[in-house]
């Protein structure tokens, strides 16, 4: 029997060294489900940014706190959720990195990149603790997807 969705889960400690492990898995999954190289590159980056945020800002590098990553390969889209165990935050309260006053800030661009490269990015508080970010990328024919990436870059 064919499953409608396939799920791959991974839990890492709050150490930056593990980000490469997550992105290597990301590359395997995106190529396996048929995203082209361009789309895979940017999905890789969105996942990298979300996991780095979870380690740095969510768990604050606490070695006792993990980061849970779940890839759900659906018929129409790839969905990636990343959960941390930190105190949580209000995503609407973050400074706009495109505000002229913030352009030269050293940090604060990660979520903008995630929103640019994925079709949707949603933050929710987990019922117990921490934040869960859910990102989706539609599975599209190769040519159309490349066009989307180019349009994304130009649009921004």
């Amino acid at each position, binding site marked *: 029997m064919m499953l409608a969705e396939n799920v791959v889960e991974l839990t890492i400690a709050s150490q930056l060294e593990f*980000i490469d492990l997550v992105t290597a898995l990301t590359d395997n999954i995106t190529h396996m489900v048929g995203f082209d190289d361009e789309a895979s590159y940017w999905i890789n*980056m969105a996942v990298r940014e979300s996991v780095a945020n979870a380690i740095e800002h969510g768990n604050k590098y606490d070695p006792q706190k993990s980061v849970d990553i779940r890839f759900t390969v659906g018929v129409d889209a790839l969905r990636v959720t990343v959960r941390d165990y930190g105190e949580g935050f209000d995503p609407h309260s973050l400074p706009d990195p495109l505000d002229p006053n913030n*352009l*030269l*800030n050293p940090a604060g661009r990660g979520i903008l*990149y995630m929103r640019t490269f994925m079709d949707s990015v949603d933050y929710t508080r987990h019922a117990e603790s921490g934040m869960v970010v859910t990102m989706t990328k539609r599975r599209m024919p190769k040519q159309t997807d490349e066009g989307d990436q180019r349009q994304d*870059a130009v649009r*921004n």
Partner: protein
Amino acid sequence: MQLEIKERTVGDVVVLELHGRITIGEGSVQLRDAVSNLLNSSRQRIVLNLEGVSYVDSSGIGELVSRYTTTKNQGGQLKLLKLPKKIKDLLMITKLLTVFEIYEDEESAMQSFK
């Protein structure tokens, strides 16, 4: 090592040839240290050649911005050379393309200091 940095001097301009990744953690720290060392020894005309950089994340972009502002605040100049397309895309998305002086070839970068 995430990032390999080779230093070269052309007149009074220092060219840092970067190879590898500028990402959160090691790569960003290596870039910060390399530029700080130059500024500490009063070498304030700096070109970062990014041709050999294969990957940059938001932390790496932030590091480029920080090195640019630190150098400028100390009276120096930091310019970028040979940006790979994906780094250019990341700078464009965050409206940073016009912040940096960016050159396609080294001769033009050198001329800009005169």
